[in-house]
């Protein structure tokens, strides 16, 4: 006789298929899917469009927002996992129904995390596929916050991307004019066009497969963040009661050190994003393997803790 919990109804339930009338479900789904694709495209778009594929310029411009954004993202993920797996965050009685049906708690938990993982990490996986067909990234060494801050040699990038090769670019006059205008306006000087640099050459370092590494880095970081939040929820679940204060502590606890880090080590966090990217680029195989091994480990721990939860 079949003794396993059927997956189909659990997944349908997690996707709220029968919970919402069909038209709002389709409209809501389309809206979420749109955002989902947008979120998948955004990290690469920031790099390739806003920074013209210059990785160092990207970290220079957005390095300081990387961590606040990461913590915001982690907070959203935490609250999402919390509402799905921590009975104290939502009324306990909603769990009572599931926990007293012929549903294996572990299957129920796995179904929840599967849907949640697909929604959270899906855009980053999508990003990885887009990266396969994106142009190579380049590096203008003077733009790198990590390199300029710590005076590290260019070797970091060369080590991470062994196939890197220099490229000489002669900027068009039109581009130069725009750059000059922007620079002068920013500096508060009158916008005067100076067509003097037309024959000046710019040296760039082309980093082959860096786009893919960048997308993989985001996916790796996202997976690590998701696992960390899953682990945190699994360990905290039985300590979170329905009191508002308890939920507040649960939600705020992992982010207090983050806020401290951001406020007091602002300069460091700017360079940290790039340093982290370079570290990943240098050891991507080992780091990816570590996360791949951690996934079943964390899932096992979290399912076990979920299995032991009490509903009072």
């Amino acid at each position, binding site marked *: 006789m079949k*003794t396993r*919990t059927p997956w189909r*109804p659990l997944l349908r339930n997690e996707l709220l298929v029968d*919970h919402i009338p069909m038209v709002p479900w389709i409209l809501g789904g389309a809206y979420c899917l749109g955002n989902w694709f947008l979120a998948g495209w955004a990290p690469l778009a920031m790099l390739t469009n806003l920074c013209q594929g210059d990785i160092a310029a990207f970290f220079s411009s957005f390095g300081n927002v990387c961590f606040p954004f990461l913590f915001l993202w982690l907070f959203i993920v935490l609250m999402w996992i919390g509402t799905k797996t921590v009975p104290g965050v939502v009324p306990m*009685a909603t769990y*009572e129904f599931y926990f007293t049906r*012929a*549903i*294996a708690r572990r299957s129920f938990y796995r179904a929840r995390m599967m849907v949640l993982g697909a929604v959270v990490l899906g855009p980053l996986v999508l990003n990885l596929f887009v990266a396969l067909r994106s142009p190579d990234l380049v590096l203008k060494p003077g733009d790198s916050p990590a390199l300029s801050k710590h005076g590290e040699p260019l070797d970091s990038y060369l080590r991470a991307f062994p196939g890197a090769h220099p490229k000489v670019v002669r900027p068009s006059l039109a581009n130069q004019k725009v750059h000059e205008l922007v620079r002068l306006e920013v500096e508060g000087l009158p916008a005067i066009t100076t067509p003097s640099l037309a024959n000046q050459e710019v040296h760039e370092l082309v980093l082959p497969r860096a786009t893919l590494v960048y997308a993989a880095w985001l996916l790796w970081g996202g997976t690590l963040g998701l696992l960390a939040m899953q682990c945190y929820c699994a360990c905290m679940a039985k300590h979170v009661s329905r009191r508002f204060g308890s939920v507040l502590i649960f939600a705020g606890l992992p982010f207090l050190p983050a806020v401290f880090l951001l406020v007091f080590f602002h300069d460091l966090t700017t360079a940290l994003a790039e340093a982290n990217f370079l570290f990943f680029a240098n050891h991507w195989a080992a780091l990816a393997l570590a996360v791949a091994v951690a996934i079943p480990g964390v899932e096992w721990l979290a399912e076990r803790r979920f299995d*032991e939860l009490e509903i009072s």
Partner: protein
Amino acid sequence: MDPYIIETKNVSRSFGKNPAVQNLNLRVRRGSIYGFLGRNGAGKTTALKMLAGLLWPDAGEIRVNGVAPAQFTVQDRWKIGYVSEKQILMPGMRVAALLQFSSQFYPGWDFGVCERMLRRFKIDPQKRIKTLSQGTARQVALLLALAQKPDLLILDEPAANLDVVARRDFLDEMLQLLREEGKTALLSSHILSDVERVADEIGILVRGKLKISEPLDHLKETVKQARFFGFARGLDTFAVPEAFRLTKTRDEALATLRIQDDTTLPKLAAAHQCQYELIHLNLEDIFVEIVREGEE
């Protein structure tokens, strides 16, 4: 097969420093309807949740269908229906969708019971749970528990929020199902007239301790109230050590006690040189007397 579907040995559970259940030794016979009674806060819900595998005991051992709730498998869950005191169903789901969702987890799901009860309770299956009244949502929860055809039904205040007619209908349906197929039910309720109507056995929980656990008929036959009057030497020294409760007025005493045999009361009256009158009690009276034990 074990004659008892539920068996607990010295089960205790506390919340912080507050003991909710203390040394609970409960045995529920297969095929019986067991009325689990107690005042608010007596520990009924905690005990039922431990039996349903929602809470774990601090000490002691629980066996439901021969299995400890912590080890319940999906197969074990097929055999246990549970309706909690404050059951929340998925508010956005239609009744029909909820029945369909639940049916997929039970191989023995009985759509016939669903149809019969939907008709009997006059529930529109196309309505969403959030649009139902509290009582109707409760009926749906009960329907879900009955349709899975469990060996054991654990019902915590099943008739709360139901009107008299719906309550009667539910009890009839439950009785029909249980009697036809020799199933067992453990139900807690504050509506003692309902319990008296359906229960075979009664357990009374007082401050977390099981005070009484016996067949209802035996309880009603043996627990009586006696009015003692016409004391020749006054009633200052009058005492009934085995009484659940003894109330004295100026010239008479009222004792609720278990009468072991026909000689108990005559002996007591002769010893105190008084007369007595026997008063038969219904379940509600017995319950009140027992939970008030020790009160003057």
